[in-house]
């Protein structure tokens, strides 16, 4: 059977993949004809092409599939069963599938064709938009831009525009943002979040027209209320229209407001022609989300294979879950089920608003308050995956519990039919079976095997819970034991040390462990002892517990030399101090590099050189930067309101204050922080363990962000805090984390694993639900009061200095194995020996 697919977007791609994966006998000969110059790519992730240069390409089809790109189909001859492309190519079909998607809708306003006006749909659109913005930002002091449309895509485009250094306005005709997903309360809360990101929102204001400037490109947008906004760039994101022009031209039935009419098997009025994805009108509705599009593709794949094999298929498209989540860094918005059901539909709603934290939640339940019908989450959507899984099902507790504890209930007891991953239509039962039958133990393997969580990723936490529940049930107990020497988790050991008042490793392992420890438990205990205020980390027995970096108060590099990082609080440094760093580096022949944390790293110091390097730095007023420790690294800052035209608070002063407060604080893992002086977020605070962004009224505190291997944006914990409130919350957050986290657990995964998540953390830190705050505050005060510079303390102690030699029997001999060669006017290490794996005798 000859199958021709018109359109190679996500839906067309999925259709072909589904056909190929189930068509072992090669019953279908497939030709795909696409209009875009490249094969299908992940349009859902389009924005990451701009912001992260992501490669969006889908895996290519196998060689059996004939691919045509950059040559749109121009006409269909249904009688002859052929399609003709713009370049004149003719291809015959037995079954034709239209997967032509949709096109952005640009309202017919004057000036819509001016240069500088864009849509946001394809990679080419984004390239053009980026080039235009680059040209503007290079030639102008500041560039303003407008996104027309305050829906899901509009907000995503607006944030991307902001990323291109454009002062961004969002114009929405409806009275509030995301009107298709949010009610008025949710829309109002979302507006605050969007404005906190530094965007301007004009809601309830239709646009009158676009006006050109002297260069002929768009310069201004006039609004219907008589006002105008300057704009060198305009992006239309005012909805999409199905691309049904081919179907129309060949006489297929189309809907009144567009869309190719199909039945539940996705067949058009011509039995040889099918339509799937955003171009299809099924059950009177056009779907603008990728999950239902994929379902349609699966249905048609099933039907076509049955036809080709002479069999039968009952696959039907049964409608879809329209739950959505806004993919906008730092703004949690989700709507699921039917958030607009009201008393007429026999529905009740439970609403919760926390204006301080910027949280709005609304659940819609049946009138007996038992069945979840839908809801809206703004400001904190952590319970979205669970709640969405419960749509139409009976809630495990009261709606209030579901509102707050959202995620706790889920996991093991979700009904098997519950769809966990709506992008790929994977049920809880499917995931459980895969785990059991394939013996899966890793999340990545579950994703790979079931596809759950592999598209938008929002259900990943839920997939993880299912996995954990299955593993526990199968008796694959995930041991909490730290190592062979302690049965305890780090948090348990912390409590043991705190409660018993034990002050040495020997006491601890004698009473609570076995053996003599290892490179896992020793540093953990060292860190716990340090967190509980037990003096210098190289004092007495503690010295033997430290990892080499802590032991030498510097960072070991690949050739066994160390790097030295003096603290430069907030990244602020005087010319005099810079000169001293330069002189030290020059005199010791060190390689120098500016770090990501706004300080300077000096590489290539031999052990015996360290004390002299520190002495000179300490004399110039520097102290240890703790780059070697599982402790606070830096508090990065932008230049703030003192110098910056846009700054609203003094971010440098706050960064210095915080860095000096938390310096030397030992934690389960390193801690990073940043303070931004305005919502432009130049300090990248949202990627930090604790990040602070200035507002007109004070500070917004973001917690548990992470760069590194698995980046995570920090969650907004509290808004508009005073200096004192800010410091108090950070104090408690850090101390609570230090007490309860696992070994090498960054704040991001700690928070993700914390039962009750961010809400629970707020209860602990703000409302003092555990009655722990006084203790946490006191612990931090002790830390602040007892801080002293580890470098200076070492220099002052001849006993500690003794260890800084390469050879005990030849203290003046430098290690002859250390060698360097020049590169770009600095040194680079050469390993004389090179890795040498000796084979032992059997």
């Amino acid at each position, binding site marked *: 059977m000859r199958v021709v697919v018109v359109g190679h977007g996500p839906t067309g791609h999925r259709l072909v993949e589904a056909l190929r994966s189930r068509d072992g006998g090669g019953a279908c000969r497939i030709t795909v004809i696409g209009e875009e110059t490249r094969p299908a790519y992940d349009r859902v992730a389009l924005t990451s092409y701009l912001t992260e240069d992501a490669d969006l390409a889908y895996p290519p089809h196998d060689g059996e599939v004939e691919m045509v790109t950059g040559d749109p189909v121009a006409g269909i001859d249904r009688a002859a069963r052929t399609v003709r492309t713009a370049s004149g190519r003719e291809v015959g079909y037995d079954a034709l599938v239209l997967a032509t998607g949709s096109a952005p809708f640009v309202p017919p306003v004057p000036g819509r064709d001016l240069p500088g006006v864009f849509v946001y749909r394809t990679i080419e659109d984004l390239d053009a938009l980026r080039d235009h913005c680059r040209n503007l930002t290079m030639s102008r002091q500041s560039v303003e831009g407008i996104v027309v449309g305050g829906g899901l895509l509009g907000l995503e485009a607006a944030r991307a525009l902001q990323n291109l250094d454009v002062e961004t306005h969002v114009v929405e005709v409806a009275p509030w943002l995301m009107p298709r997903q949010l009610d008025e309360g949710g829309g109002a809360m979302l507006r605050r979040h969007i404005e906190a990101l530094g965007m301007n929102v004009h809601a309830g204001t239709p646009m009158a027209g676009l006006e050109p400037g002297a260069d002929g490109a768009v310069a201004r947008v006039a609004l219907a209320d008589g006002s105008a906004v300057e704009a060198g760039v305009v992006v239309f994101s005012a909805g999409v229209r199905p691309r049904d022009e081919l179907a129309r031209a060949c006489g297929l039935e189309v809907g009144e407001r567009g869309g190719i009419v199909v039945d539940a098997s996705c067949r058009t009025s011509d039995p040889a022609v099918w339509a799937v994805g955003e171009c299809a009108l099924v059950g009177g509705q056009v779907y603008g989300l990728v999950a239902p599009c994929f379902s349609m593709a699966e249905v048609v794949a099933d039907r076509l294979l049955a036809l080709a094999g002479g069999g039968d298929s009952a696959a039907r498209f049964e409608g879809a879950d329209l739950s959505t989540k806004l993919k906008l860094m730092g703004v949690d918005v989700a709507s699921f089920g039917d958030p607009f059901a009201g008393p007429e539909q026999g529905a009740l709603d439970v609403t919760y608003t926390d204006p301080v934290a910027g949280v709005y939640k609304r659940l819609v339940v049946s009138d007996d308050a038992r069945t979840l019908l839908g809801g809206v989450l703004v400001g904190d959507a952590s319970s979205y995956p669970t709640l969405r899984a419960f749509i139409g099902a009976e809630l495990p507790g009261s709606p209030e519990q579901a509102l707050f504890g959202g995620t706790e209930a889920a996991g093991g007891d979700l009904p098997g039919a519950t769809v966990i991953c709506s992008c790929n239509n994977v049920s809880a039962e499917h995931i459980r079976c895969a785990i059991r039958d394939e013996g899966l133990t890793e999340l990545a393997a579950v994703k790979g095997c079931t596809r759950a969580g592999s598209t938008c990723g929002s259900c990943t936490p839920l997939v993880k819970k299912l996995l954990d529940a299955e593993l526990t049930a199968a008796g694959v107990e995930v041991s909490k034991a730290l190592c062979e020497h302690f049965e305890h988790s780090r948090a348990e050991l912390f409590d043991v040390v705190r409660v018993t008042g034990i002050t040495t490793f020997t006491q601890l392992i004698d009473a609570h462990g076995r053996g003599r420890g290892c490179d896992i438990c020793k540093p953990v205990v060292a860190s716990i002892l340090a967190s509980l205020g037990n003096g210098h980390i190289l004092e007495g027995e503690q010295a033997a517990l430290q990892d080499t970096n802590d032991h030498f108060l510097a960072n070991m590099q690949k050739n066994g030399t160390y790097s030295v990082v003096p603290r430069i609080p907030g990244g602020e440094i005087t010319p005099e101090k810079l000169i001293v760093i330069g002189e030290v580096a020059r005199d010791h022949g060190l390689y120098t590099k500016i770090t990501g944390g706004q300080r300077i790293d000096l590489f290539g110091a031999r052990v015996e050189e360290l004390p002299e390097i520190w002495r000179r730095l300490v004399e110039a007023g520097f102290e240890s930067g703790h780059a070697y420790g599982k402790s606070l690294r830096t508090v990065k800052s932008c230049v703030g309101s003192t110098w910056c035209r846009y700054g609203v608070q003094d971010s440098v002063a706050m960064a210095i204050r915080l860095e000096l407060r938390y310096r030397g604080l030992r934690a389960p893992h390193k801690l990073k922080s940043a303070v931004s002086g305005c919502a432009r977020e130049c300090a990248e605070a949202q990627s930090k363990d604790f990040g602070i962004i200035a507002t007109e009224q004070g500070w917004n505190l973001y917690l548990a962000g992470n760069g590194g291997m698995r980046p995570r944006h920090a969650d907004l914990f509290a808004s508009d805090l005073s200096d004192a409130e800010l410091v108090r919350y950070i104090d408690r957050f850090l101390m609570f984390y230090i007490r309860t986290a696992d070994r090498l657990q960054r704040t991001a995964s700690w928070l993700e694993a914390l039962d009750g998540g961010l809400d629970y953390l707020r209860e602990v830190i703000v409302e003092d639900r555990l009655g722990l705050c006084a203790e946490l505050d006191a612990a931090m005060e002790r830390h602040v009061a007892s801080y002293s510079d580890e470098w200076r303390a070492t220099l002052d102690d001849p006993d500690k200095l003794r260890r800084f030699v390469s050879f005990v029997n030849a203290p003046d001999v430098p290690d002859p194995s250390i060698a360097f060669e020049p590169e770009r006017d600095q040194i680079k290490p050469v390993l004389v020996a090179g890795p040498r794996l000796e084979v032992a*005798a059997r």
Partner: protein
Amino acid sequence: MTAELTAEPSAPPETAMTAGQPATPSRWHAVCRYGDLTPERGACAIVEGAQVAIFRTFDGALHAVGNLDPFSGAQVISRGIQGTRGGAPVVASPMYKDVFDLRTGRCADDPAVALPVYAIRRAAGDRVEVAVPDGHRQ
């Protein structure tokens, strides 16, 4: 090999091993005082050109192995954390955390790899002495 806590001078040991080769008899070298060694923390000595990592374990025993981490090629074994694994005294290289048995030099996770093991003893006057076989002099 296990530590020798004898104080009397004796003939150079036959037991110094490297990669299973019997060592050529050698000469004892005093490297430091026993009291200079921090329990469970290494030190490095340079003996006839060879870098030797020396450990004093919690129970007072002495061990000497090569300082070169075979996995990274850096001379760093003496700066690793010392502890036990299944009762055996071990050191974890500070570079990539590979664990070596101090008695045999063998890598606990990759038995095909081993550090050379040297003879070490606590001699008269609280001296710590090490012997390096001929093949290891540099």
